[in-house]
């Protein structure tokens, strides 16, 4: 729908780059910013420009970082012999918060997925292969999601590790703590059953 202002049309069109925002939502956002919150609009524009310009990728782990190295990669307190591969910065954060992991990370920013056009190059896996080849890493911890794409990625990472002579491990799949077996979906239960551990 064309409005009376070409600038307004351009703004609506620009807002549609956001995921899940269609023509209607974009229009609502544009009207809200112009009608009710012009200072907010200016602040948003400023922060967007700043972020798009200043935030790059960490040279070592590919996560979003303002410096050449992210604080985690730069920290001497982290164990350089352990490398945990995750799909996204949110996965990295989840592991940081939930576990006492003291090693470093590699953030792929995606998973191998033909339908999304994501391959080894897009995920920086050539960079990871070089890092594995440097000889500092003793264990590669694969923390991809238990989806079909995540599993295929895990397999690829395991091949890379084996090629470099590095031990590869992956997160266990199992019964969520505090849940009851009768309510767990069959696939998860089958996985947990197949991957049972020795007691004692």
């Amino acid at each position: 729908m064309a409005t009376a202002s070409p600038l307004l049309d351009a703004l609506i069109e620009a807002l549609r780059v956001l995921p899940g925002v269609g023509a209607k939502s974009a229009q609502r956002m544009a009207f809200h910013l112009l009608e009710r919150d012009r200072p907010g609009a200016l602040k948003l524009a400023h922060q967007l420009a700043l972020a798009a310009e200043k935030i790059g990728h960490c040279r070592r782990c590919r996560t979003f970082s303002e410096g050449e190295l992210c604080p985690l990669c730069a920290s001497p307190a982290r164990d350089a012999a352990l490398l945990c591969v995750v799909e996204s910065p949110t996965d990295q954060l989840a592991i940081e918060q939930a576990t006492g992991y003291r090693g470093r990370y590699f953030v792929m920013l995606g998973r191998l997925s033909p339908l999304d056009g994501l391959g080894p190059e897009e995920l920086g896996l050539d960079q990871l292969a070089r890092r594995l080849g440097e000889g500092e890493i003793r264990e590669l911890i694969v923390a991809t999601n238990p989806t079909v794409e995540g599993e295929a990625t895990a397999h690829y990472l395991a091949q890379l590790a084996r090629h470099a002579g590095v031990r590869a491990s992956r997160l266990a799949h199992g019964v969520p703590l505090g849940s009851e077996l009768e309510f767990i979906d069959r696939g998860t239960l089958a996985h947990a059953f197949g991957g049972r551990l020795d007691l004692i």
Partner: protein
Amino acid sequence: MRERVERQPAYVLHERPYRETSAILELLSRDHGRVAVVARGLRAPKPRFARGALRALQPLECGWIGQGEMGQLIAVEVIGLPQAVTAMQLQSVLYLNELLVRLLARNDPHPRVFDAYAGLLGDLPRANAVLGFALRRFEKDLLAELGYGIDFAWDLATQAPVREQGYYRVDPEQGVFAVAGPGRGALPGGALLALAAGVLPAAELLADLRRMMRSLLLHHLGGHGLQAWRVLRSPVPPADPA
């Protein structure tokens, strides 16, 4: 027009995030072909649907309300166990799923493609040694079902059956033509006859068949090849899954 579909046999081909907690699923259904449905709240902490079951390889019965391009998922029933597959076979599944999403138009029913897909998934655990050939047969049947079928046992140049010892090229629109001898793009008659009959050929012919089917698929994909061909290449040499 709203259409309500119930208990429709289906597989998930692809999932992509949609809005805050929802997802758009590409399904391959038996009687409605490839359909896109929104699964509301699938990625929420307490999803309405069995999250673990809504993934590729799991036989499902789905219900949805269709309206135009995109339906809304309303029911999911898990049918049997998901196929247990090796990582290598998993890559083949990713390849198949991309192939189906690219080649099948939405809402265009092809029950035979569904049955062939279900059969192939069911055979995966046993098909290890002959997985490549199982994929070639699926591709051949898929093209035939979509109206691009080729008689691989008939030489159009001489209007005679393909000979085991001869050499041929395959035109994606027309079919098989005899050529003078081995050379670029030429493939042995034995490979074509094996594919036509669905009988596993000698191992060295499998690579020929893969190359030939790839060029046919590339043609019908409008010249834009599958990402799987590039993405799923192994980091270290072993066999190619697609």
